[in-house]
């Protein structure tokens, strides 16, 4: 099991106070994670000692910067077991990954009448880019529904996933329910009908071991800021033949081979998809985050989060009037979305904040999911390697006070 006391000492922000005398309890990790000292210092030290633009420079600083930057790409490749680091494309965030695939692979391959299969539990990032593509091309969006127990209803899959399905994109883990979907099986089902399969790994890569070769997915995207890394960096993994066959996304410096006034040719992978000066320090920071996560061990992290989630679900269920959305802990990552009868989630979040507890309230960028549940918003507590049972207890205590304020 993880040594949370030791881990907490690695996160400077966890020693701060939300309000004078009120220590911070950070339970908003699914929105964005905090950063350990090792990550902050890797970036700080880079700027103090090594910064230069990458790739185009012969001088030593540029060489050092390029080595660190490309070294971070290799760390990512190893972390997700990509066959080669050239299949790791840097993005701003996971969201850019869906847009990149929609604009490049999508516009080149999706035609009128083609179907794109998603699920009803997708984050807007894995929904709206496909809506735009479908509208442009006259393609059809279809959705795998979720059941009462917040898991996907696969009973109708043979009708939803057919030879018309050109793309199948779904989340490995819901950021609201926490549902961990059967990713490998779904990839296989997609391939069986000849679909290209993309995985939204924004919530899975930070919290459990992910092996892209084992999953056999065609594309997979995630964000650095949710996995102890900096903002401004994300990753798209893709199968080589696909990435090579795709037109570039953005154009500019570094992504070209030769440029004439009228025509240009493209650079090799991964640079073909990386136009202009990239997020250099952010890549290096993500590399440091991966070192930190690897040191803890993704299996250990997953096991610890199972434990703390289980603990939280039990503790929360004792709050009168509280409803938790999502499957039981065994099928669930470290998030607990809930409502309390008689108190709007906004009011819950604001009032527990006064106790120093940071949770989120809203639709969590999953409006259709909430619409189907018939609610506008939920409150959501989400956990990570530094979350303690004591913090969960404090949340429960605070929620009980919220109820009292609302005269419940």
């Amino acid at each position, binding site marked *: 099991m993880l040594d949370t006391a030791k881990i907490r000492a690695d996160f400077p922000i966890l020693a701060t106070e939300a309000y004078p005398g*009120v220590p911070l309890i950070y339970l908003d990790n699914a929105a964005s994670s905090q950063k350990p000292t090792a990550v902050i210092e890797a970036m700080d030290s880079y700027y103090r000692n090594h910064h230069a633009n990458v790739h185009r420079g012969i001088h030593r600083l540029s060489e050092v910067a390029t080595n660190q930057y490309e070294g971070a790409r290799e760390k990512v490749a190893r972390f997700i077991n990509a066959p080669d680091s050239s299949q790791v494309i840097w993005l701003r965030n996971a969201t850019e990954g869906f847009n990149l695939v929609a604009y490049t692979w999508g516009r080149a391959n999706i035609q009128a009448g083609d179907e794109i299969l998603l699920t009803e539990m997708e984050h807007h990032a894995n929904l709206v880019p496909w809506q735009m593509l479908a509208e442009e091309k006259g393609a059809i969006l279809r959705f795998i529904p979720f059941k009462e127990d917040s898991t996907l209803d696969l009973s109708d899959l043979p009708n939803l996933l057919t030879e018309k399905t050109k793309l199948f994109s779904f989340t490995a883990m819901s950021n609201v329910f926490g549902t961990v979907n059967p990713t490998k099986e779904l990839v296989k089902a997609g391939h069986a009908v000849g679909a290209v399969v993309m995985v939204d790994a924004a919530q899975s890569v930070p919290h459990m071991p992910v092996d892209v070769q084992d999953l056999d997915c065609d594309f997979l995207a995630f964000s650095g800021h949710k996995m102890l890394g900096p903002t401004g960096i994300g990753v798209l993994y893709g199968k080589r033949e696909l990435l090579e066959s795709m037109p570039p996304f953005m154009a500019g410096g570094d992504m070209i081979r030769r440029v004439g006034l009228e025509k240009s040719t493209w650079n090799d992978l991964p640079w073909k998809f990386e136009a202009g000066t990239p997020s250099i320090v952010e890549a290096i920071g993500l590399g440091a985050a991966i070192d930190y996560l690897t040191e803890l061990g993704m299996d250990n992290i997953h096991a610890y989060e199972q434990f703390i989630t289980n603990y939280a679900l039990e503790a929360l269920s004792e709050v009168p009037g509280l409803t938790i959305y999502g499957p039981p802990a065994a099928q669930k990552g470290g998030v607990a979305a809930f409502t309390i009868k008689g108190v*709007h989630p*906004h*009011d819950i979040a*604001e009032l527990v904040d006064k106790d120093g507890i940071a949770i989120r309230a809203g639709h969590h960028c999953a409006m259709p999911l909430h619409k189907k549940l018939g609610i506008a*918003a939920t409150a959501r507590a989400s956990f990570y390697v530094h979350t303690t049972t004591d913090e969960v207890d404090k949340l429960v205590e605070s929620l009980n006070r919220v109820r009292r304020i*609302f005269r419940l």
Partner: protein
Amino acid sequence: MLDESFYREQIIDLYENPLNHGELDPNDFSYEEDNPLCGDVIRIDVRLDDEQRVAEVAWSGDGCAISQASASLLTEEIKGMTLAEIKAFDKDKLLELIGVPLSMARVKCALLSLKVLKSGAYGIPDKGVMRDEG
């Protein structure tokens, strides 16, 4: 360290027993909008008298205690006002009526009702045309 007085009793009172809650049909203008941050929705329906002053007003919708209390307080306040007065209604006035210190995100909740009201007030011609046609 939860400041229990933070949600003034008044807010909770209004949340439990809202003022002017409901819908008016027909009305002289009606407008609905949501706060995309959270999905709060407010609709305000207004009937004017012969002098174009607010004769009747009702609000409906879903939302947090702040946005709901704000809708109650606002609709109570504007009774008898002219359209021009509504268009000039100052947001600080509404925040004052609410009377609790609000964070930025909550200010949006608090002001949603005013935004809806003003959109409705400015939208009268369009709405009118639509009603005439329909």
